[in-house]
């Protein structure tokens, strides 16, 4: 007893702020380097969410500047709807304060921890209060605040506040100073680049000390803001049910229909019946035992999936492709948006994309871009369900090599999971938990895209093979003929019948010999060919026979065009003095029926 009393003296409640001070890693502040990224990420998430709600095309400015040896000043400014002055201290100076926690729709931030955690982190490392400027409209004055958090009570500590002259008509600007390093600069730019890929309607301007970067928008349409929906009976937990019941004046049947999505009178009756409760009872009078029975009955009764179209905002296949194409130069991109689906009563939707070739690194592991509700996941790739799905796919089936299950080569994979409740493995929101329903959707999307990529690669290989063959037949065999004729001491054997027999195409050859350029077109098809020969090179071809129908010059490059008609099995030839080089193309005939061979290469 004595011991218990002793212990009781030490037992007291802990403030959330105090708890997080001791558990910084839970929020993504485990190291100073990571702190920068987490802070910017939280501020940018808030800005994008706010702009979305206000239907504004986001214009976000980010600046990171070194103020003293180890202290960095981070500024994030947006053109969002602003925050009313009375709310500012709570949004930035109180942990777990937010507008979206109780809403059921897709948002980036959720719990109201992110940005205030950054404020707390700044206060702990540099002691400098966070400065917030916000303006809600042209008619309102802007307000400026200096804010900290009272750690013991988790309440805002306003150091200074007052109206402020600001050139923006609406928006919010946060300025946070803390001890850090710029070791993660590459990762930071990566984060912004990826954010810009999945938010193609936003523009980001970044200043890093003296360097500046812009991630331009490719879509001029503000994305539709997801609408909050009622909770789904399958996705509810006891505590939430208890709170809802306590706030309701309705009877049980009405309560079920009014407060939950997709519950009609019939389902309500079924739930009541299964729980053994009378539908006309006031819900407020239900006991804990009754509620437990009710909850169990709600899980058992079949209710249609929650309406996903309003509460989720997928990026869309077209915009994913455009977003990727703007940031990565690739030969192939395909995207998939899967139909919405449900896990434990929460709507979710999977989107994926695969890119291939171009300037992606040819060696090593594929690039994997993971997103949850349009936010890039930058850490803990190995712990994420997305990674597990990617590794679980037999890439060999799609002719993509893999190393330890992970695809290798010039491949980029993007996976976006959108949900009213993204199941993260921890509060730092770095990795998605392995929910079978979500994993199944990711796998289906990737398999579908894998098939598409395989088709692309095999088509490309086929045309490569045809080109290789053309090169052999049109360029090398004539040389073999020359040498062999010389050895056997007989007249030069003509190899054009081989060409014609093999190719059955329009073959254009260009060769430069002793200061003379010759272009030769062989029509090995069975039809007349009405074509234009386009040649762009530094030669002006003034002495060309026959003369070009059209010549124009740009930056020392001459475009020459000959319009000609070649009957089947006939040859057309032009030659002029020059050095060769440049490009040759034949137009007016389909790609499959022509082959251009540069004999000088």
């Amino acid at each position, binding site marked *: 007893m004595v011991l218990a009393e002793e212990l009781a003296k030490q037992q007291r409640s802990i403030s959330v702020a105090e708890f997080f001070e001791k558990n910084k890693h839970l929020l993504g502040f485990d190291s100073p380097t990571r702190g920068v990224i987490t802070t910017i990420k939280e501020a940018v998430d808030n800005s994008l969410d706010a702009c979305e709600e206000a239907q504004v095309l986001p214009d976000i400015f980010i600046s990171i500047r070194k103020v003293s040896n180890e202290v960095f000043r981070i500024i994030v400014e947006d053109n969002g709807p602003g925050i009313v002055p009375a709310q500012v201290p709570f949004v930035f100076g109180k942990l777990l304060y937010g507008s979206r926690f109780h809403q059921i729709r897709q948002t980036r931030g959720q719990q109201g921890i992110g940005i205030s955690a950054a404020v707390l982190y700044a206060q702990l490392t540099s002691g400098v209060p966070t400065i917030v400027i916000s303006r809600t409209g042209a008619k309102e004055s802007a307000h400026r605040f200096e804010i900290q958090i009272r750690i013991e009570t988790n309440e805002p500590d306003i150091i200074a506040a007052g109206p402020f002259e600001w050139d923006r008509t609406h928006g919010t600007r946060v300025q946070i100073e803390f001890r850090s390093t710029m070791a993660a600069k590459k990762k930071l730019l990566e984060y912004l680049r990826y954010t810009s890929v999945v938010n193609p309607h936003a523009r980001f301007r970044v200043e890093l000390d003296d360097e500046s970067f812009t991630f331009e928008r490719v879509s001029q349409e503000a994305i539709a803001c997801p609408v909050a929906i009622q909770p789904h009976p399958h996705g509810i937990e006891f505590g939430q049910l208890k709170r809802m019941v306590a706030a309701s004046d309705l009877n049980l049947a009405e309560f079920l229909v009014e407060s939950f999505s997709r519950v009609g009178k019939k389902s309500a009756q079924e739930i009541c019946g299964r729980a053994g409760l009378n539908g006309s009872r006031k819900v407020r009078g239900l006991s804990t035992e009754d509620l437990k029975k009710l909850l169990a009955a709600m899980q058992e009764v079949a209710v249609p999936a929650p309406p996903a179209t309003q509460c989720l905002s997928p990026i869309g296949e077209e915009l994913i492709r455009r977003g990727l194409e703007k940031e990565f130069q690739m030969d192939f991109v395909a995207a998939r948006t899967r139909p919405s689906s449900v896990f434990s009563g929460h709507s979710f939707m999977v989107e994926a994309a695969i890119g291939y070739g171009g300037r992606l690194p040819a060696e090593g592991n594929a690039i994997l871009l993971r997103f949850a509700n349009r936010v890039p996941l930058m850490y803990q790739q190995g712990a994420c369900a997305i990674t597990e799905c990617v590794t679980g796919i037999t890439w060999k089936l799609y002719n993509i090599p893999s190393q330890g299950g992970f695809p290798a080569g010039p491949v980029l994979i993007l996976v976006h999971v959108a949900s009213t409740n993204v199941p993260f493995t921890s509060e730092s929101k770095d990795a998605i938990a392995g929910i079978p329903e979500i994993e199944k959707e990711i796998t289906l999307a990737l398999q579908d895209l894998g098939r598409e990529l395989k088709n692309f690669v095999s088509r490309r290989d086929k045309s490569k093979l045809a080109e290789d063959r053309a090169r052999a037949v049109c360029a090398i*065999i004539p040389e073999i003929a020359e040498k062999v004729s010389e050895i056997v001491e007989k007249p030069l054997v003509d190899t054009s019948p081989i060409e014609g027999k093999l190719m059955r195409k329009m073959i254009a050859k260009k060769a430069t010999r002793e200061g003379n350029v010759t272009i030769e077109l062989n029509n090995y098809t069975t039809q007349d060919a009405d074509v234009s020969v386009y040649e762009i090179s530094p030669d002006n071809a003034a002495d060309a026979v026959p003369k070009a129908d059209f010549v124009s010059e740009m930056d020392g490059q001459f475009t020459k065009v000959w319009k000609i008609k070649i009957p089947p099995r006939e040859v057309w030839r032009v030659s002029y003095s020059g050095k060769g080089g440049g490009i040759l193309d034949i137009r007016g005939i389909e790609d499959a029926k022509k082959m251009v061979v540069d004999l000088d290469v």
Partner: protein
Amino acid sequence: MSKEELEKKSYSALLRIASAWYDQMKAGEIPSISLPTRTKFNIEFDDASEVWKYGDKESMRTAASAKSATHLLKMAYVIGFIKQQLKENRSSTLREMYYISEGWKRAKFGAQDESNFLIEDLEILSDVPREGFHLHPEENGASIYGPMRIREETRRGMKMIHCQDDVGQAGYTIPNNVENIELVDHDAKFVIAIETGGMYDRLIENGFDEEQHAILVHLKGQPARSTRRMLNKISAAWDLPVLVFTDGDPWSYRIYASVAYGAIKSAHMSELLATPKSQFIGLQPSDIRDYNLPSDKLTEKDQEALKSELTDPRFATDYWRKQINLQIEMNLKSEQQAFAARGLDFVTKKYLPARLSEMGII
């Protein structure tokens, strides 16, 4: 075959290849050529000549892809080059030809291996050894020491040489063109071909050649074509037993195999290069056990090589299967000079005489 006959044969064979291509192209066909597949899965024992030769598996090279067309183009250039060389009675080394190809534009060789391989292809196609193309290898053959006399047609005239009396301590050096040597006479009971220089010197120092009437041949590791051709010539002309004495490891058994049966790379020349009557004297895996020789553990590569030899048709005899399996089981290998552990005279006074009488040579 005389030198003139050989040249005539190679000239017409090469021209035949070129003419075939000419006719193919004239008929509107893509030029092509077919060659035996050159792997160990395509060598067969020829009962008549008692050597291993390429089997029936052929691969066709058609100039329908850039790679194959370039290969044929290179071959055409080499044929043109050899034709010129034969006409002007010049000769060159493979390395020189590789440098000359610098001027062949698209047909130039990427690496020397490529030109070597191409020459082997031409040997197969024409059934003429490269000497007939006036191409000779870079390195000289190894050395011979023993009671025999030869006559060599050198660039400075005909010379008669006795391989004990007229040579220095290191012996007579086999020239790269053995066709210019005539074997005159000998006073030997057998030929012993030795892998390492150390053992070759040991046998000379101990007077093994005089005592046992032996011709000593230093193989210098994997023997050059001229060394193998010389052994083939001695064996054919004088009908002497040829014994191969190497280290006791899988790589050395391959030296024996290439002397006895020919190398996979040159199976088309086996009749000229292999000495099917040669026998392996040692060092046998069982010797490591019986004489308790100093030894090393086998490496993983050694183990792999031994296992690969078990599937090599050249080692498909009871004797070799027994010895190789024994070695895999013991997991040991020894060098031939390990006999020194039993005294410097042990190898010449005890080991070799014992093995020779066991094999019925003396």
